[in-house]
């Protein structure tokens, strides 16, 4: 058994006292002529013997106390929900406990520039993020979103639900519903707008039910981890999922319980995060699926993405390009959608001005439901962190193209976490 130095010192003192007492009693027992101890000596020996017993008991108590302390610390390290007195989980003050629940929300005001849209206040997504460590290598995360639609009625979506098994840094397995590892933004930011620098996602990463053209959610299996690569800091992600529904544009795009075809979507990403440069990341990903629109030939879909990101607390530079290639099975004529965005921001105290430029060029086709055509333009804004959990963002968007009516104008957002 291992004892702390202070406990060791106390034990040593106890044993020293015991040894001195025994030595003393023997010395007294071997007094002149080695005679049988008389009555007072016997009483003294008994007294010393009693003292030795007491000291032995104290040593046992100290050892038991040290063992208990060690077990408590080990238990606390494994089960953060029940730490011993004087210790707590780092995120406890922010509200995270055993089943950890964290909320995100935002309240917006939109002043649209183009005709056909009226200025309006709107409630953003009420996002409840759940996480729990189930066992040493098992954990679960979930994201439940309450969101109003264009008819002002609220609906509930389970946006993420994942059981994770992480036995080491090189292999982590997740099963459930997750954000597809296409590019950078989709897995770096999820439904809580508070985390994002801008008021919303780049339009290429919009969610499926908000006009997005990427399969940003998948239901299936995801595996990821580090690749032993020294300073290169390589990581991989491999996913197999149901893919997106393409039978009819009105269908729920994420196939939560039933796939429309036997073909599964595959995605593989390779990412480098050089260990010497904090915040630098670059990567590529390739996604493959087979779509089956109603009354049309099947389409082979390939989505290639490349990204370069430098993100440290005081500065961020994001740049991503994505190419979506569709090849109908009855012809060799392929169509390619090209899109990219770049975003720069700089922290100046509690303010963070930012600039984003987006570009999308989508040929007409049956997959996206409507003809998106070409859209491009800048977004400029500033984020003000009024308090650590509260961010106020003011943003102006000026896009050219078919999707401008949905976005152009001024947005003021009050985002917070609780």
């Amino acid at each position: 058994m291992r004892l702390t130095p202070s406990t060791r010192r106390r034990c040593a003192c106890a044993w020293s006292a015991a040894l001195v007492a025994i030595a003393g009693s023997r010395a007294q027992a071997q007094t002149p002529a080695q005679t049988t101890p008389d009555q007072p000596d016997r009483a003294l020996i008994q007294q010393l013997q009693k003292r030795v017993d007491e000291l032995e008991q104290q040593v046992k108590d100290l050892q038991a106390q040290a063992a208990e302390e060690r077990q408590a610390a080990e238990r606390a390290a494994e089960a953060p929900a029940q730490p011993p007195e004087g210790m707590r989980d780092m995120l406890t003050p922010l509200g995270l406990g055993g089943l950890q629940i964290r909320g995100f929300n935002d309240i917006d005001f939109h002043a649209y520039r183009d005709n056909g849209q009226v200025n309006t206040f709107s409630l953003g997504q009420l996002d409840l993020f759940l996480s729990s460590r189930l066992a040493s290598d098992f954990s679960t995360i979930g994201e439940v979103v309450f969101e109003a639609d264009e008819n002002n009625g609220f609906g509930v979506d389970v946006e993420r639900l994942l059981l994770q098994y992480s036995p080491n840094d090189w292999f982590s397995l997740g099963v459930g519903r997750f954000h597809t590892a296409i590019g950078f933004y989709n897995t770096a930011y999820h439904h809580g707008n508070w985390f994002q620098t801008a008021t919303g996602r780049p339009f290429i990463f919009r969610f499926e039910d908000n006009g997005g053209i990427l399969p940003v959610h998948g239901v299936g299996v995801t595996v990821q981890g580090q690749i032993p690569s020294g300073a290169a800091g390589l990581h991989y992600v491999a996913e197999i999922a149901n893919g997106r529904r393409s039978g009819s544009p009105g269908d729920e795009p994420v196939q939560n319980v039933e796939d429309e075809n036997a073909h599964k979507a595959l995605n593989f990403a390779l990412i480098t995060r050089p260990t010497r440069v904090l915040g630098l990341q670059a990567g590529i990903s390739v996604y493959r699926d087979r779509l089956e629109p109603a009354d049309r030939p099947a389409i082979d879909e390939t989505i290639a993405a490349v990204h370069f990101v430098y993100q440290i607390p005081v500065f961020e530079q994001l740049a991503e390009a994505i190419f979506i290639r569709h090849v109908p099975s009855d012809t060799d004529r392929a169509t390619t959608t090209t899109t990219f965005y770049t975003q720069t921001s700089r922290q100046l105290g509690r303010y963070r001005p930012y600039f984003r430029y987006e570009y999308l060029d989508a040929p007409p086709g049956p997959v996206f439901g409507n003809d998106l055509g070409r859209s491009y333009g800048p977004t400029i804004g500033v984020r003000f962190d009024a308090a650590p959990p509260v961010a106020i963002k003011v943003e102006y968007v000026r896009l050219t193209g078919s999707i401008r009516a949905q976005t152009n104008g001024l947005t003021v957002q009050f985002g917070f976490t609780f």
Partner: protein
Amino acid sequence: MSERCRAGAAPIAGLILSIGAACAAAASAGQATARPPLDSPHSSLAIIVNTQNTIDELPLDGLRRILLGETTRWPDGRRITVAMRDTGQAERNAVLRLVCSMSDQDFTRYLLQATFRGTLQTSPKILDTPNGVRRFVFNVPGAIGYVRGDEVDGSVKMLRITGTLSEKRAFGLTLPIK
């Protein structure tokens, strides 16, 4: 100048010199208390691990990856548990600044986002005192923490931090790098 004036000026000059010397001495004494030598134990940070840990040294970027939750296991497969002091402590601010180049608020937000992404399963443990950090590291074989140099005792093992820089300093504390 008359003899009388010269006689009066001498003590005044002496007084000025003595005041100047006293001020200089006080200033140097003040400097000594405000800015201890960089190699003094109480001004340096020590990264500590359990004595059973086979690691003796750690590169600076490796330490950063541990604090940020990117590396979660020791080479022997044991899970890493990070022990930290509470918000506002000079040691904590110094470690975050020197190792992670982050403020406390940046670090908290980073952990929250990593949890949100699903990449962080366990957040650091917070302990109120240096003794608490030491005892936690002593008791948990996979633990890593930090204390001031003069707070290290035989119950824990101090890691040697290696890197490209010779020494880093913040908030009056240094992180000696070999």
